Structure formats: C-alpha cells, structure tokens
C-alpha cells in the first residue's frame, strides 16, 4: 500500500523565519510528487515534481525532490502570517495498467505568528 509521511505534524514560527517541511514516500511505480496548501477548504496547487523536474521555485517557496532518498522538502523563506495553513504532500503512483491514484500525507500545520 502506498504511503506518504510528512513531518513535522505542526510548526509554529514568527514572521520572517525560514521553514522546511518534509515529505517521505513509499509508492509503487512513482510518477510525480505534488505540494498543496490548504487554508480552509480547497487545497490549492503549489508544485509538481517529476523525474524530469526535481526542483521548482515560485517566489518565497521552493521544493526539491530526492528520488534516491524517496523524499521531498518544501522551503518557505521570509514567512508571513498569510503562509499559515496546512501543507499537503501527495504522490502519484500507478495502481495497475492505466489506473493511477494520488496518495496524500496527513499534512503539516504551519502557524506563522506576527
């Protein structure tokens, strides 16, 4: 069974700090890894990492995929209170044939204090 583990479960920092969120996975026939931000309801897409794209950056956020270690990190620099959210890591695996599924971790609850 596919498995995604995120750490830490929760994190409290002050504005301006830099944070690193971790994600490790055990997935059959890995295809890609995605990061989402969930504030209240709908998770919003941040990054997709694949074998051909192992590092992504957007503003203060960046992410790296380590296929050897079966893990990924999400970095947020100069954190702001608006970064407070649950950050979800998800991995795409092939179940069988053309059937695929997205397996999520439990998320990291990030709280940024002013």
């Amino acid at each position, binding site marked *: 069974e596919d498995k995604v583990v995120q750490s830490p479960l929760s994190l409290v920092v002050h504005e301006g700090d830099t944070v690193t969120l971790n994600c490790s996975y055990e997935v059959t026939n890995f295809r890609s890894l995605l990061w989402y931000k969930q504030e209240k309801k*709908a998770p919003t897409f941040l990054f997709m990492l694949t074998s051909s794209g192992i590092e992504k950056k957007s503003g203060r956020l960046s992410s790296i995929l380590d296929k050897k270690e079966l893990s990924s990190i999400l970095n947020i620099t100069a954190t702001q209170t608006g970064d407070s959210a649950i950050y979800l890591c998800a991995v795409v695996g092939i179940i069988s044939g053309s059937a695929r599924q997205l397996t999520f971790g*439990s998320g990291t609850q990030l709280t940024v204090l002013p």
Partner: protein
Amino acid sequence: DAGVTQSPTHLIKTRGQQVTLRCSPISGHKSVSWYQQVLGQGPQFIFQYYEKEERGRGNFPDRFSARQFPNYSSELNVNALLLGDSALYLCASSIGVIGSNQPQHFGDGTRLSIL
C-alpha cells in the same frame, strides 16, 4: 474561468440514508477525482474518472459509487451511511488522468455530517 464547483456545500443525513454529491470540473478538464478528508488527515482517494470511464478506485467499500456524465461533471453516491462517513468530500479536476503533466485542482468540498 470558474473553478471546480461542488454542491451542496453542507449536508446533514442520518445513518442508513443515501447521499449524492455533485461536481462540475473546470471547463476543458476531462478528469474528475473524488477524495474523502476527515479532520486532521490528508484527503483519501476514492475514485478517478476520465472520459466517463473509471480509471482508479481507492480502498473504499462498495457503498461508494460514482459516475461521470458526457459534460464531464460527476456524482458521488454513498449508500447506507455510517457515522464514520462524516467528512469533507473533495472533488478535483484535471485536463488528463492523474499523473499527467497537469495537476489536479480542487473544489471547496461538501461537508457531510451523519447523525
């Protein structure tokens, strides 16, 4: 452009009843997936449909079923509701199947409460 829309936003049912949740994908998206998210956990994959065919099924009982219509909208049906079915049900759409180069985009979900 409108995002993924789900209805209803909230629903209260009692044990043993049946429920139907609806999802309209982003225009141009042909794949719809359903997820169950209980408090404190990440979303759990239930189904994926692409071009009206089931393309993946998670570890959920047969009480859960879904379908996709010619306009690519989708319904999730749950029969014989149990207290443990109380959760946020999320729908996500994408241009292609899960694992293609395009990510899934999520709706705000339907909050289902079972009394």
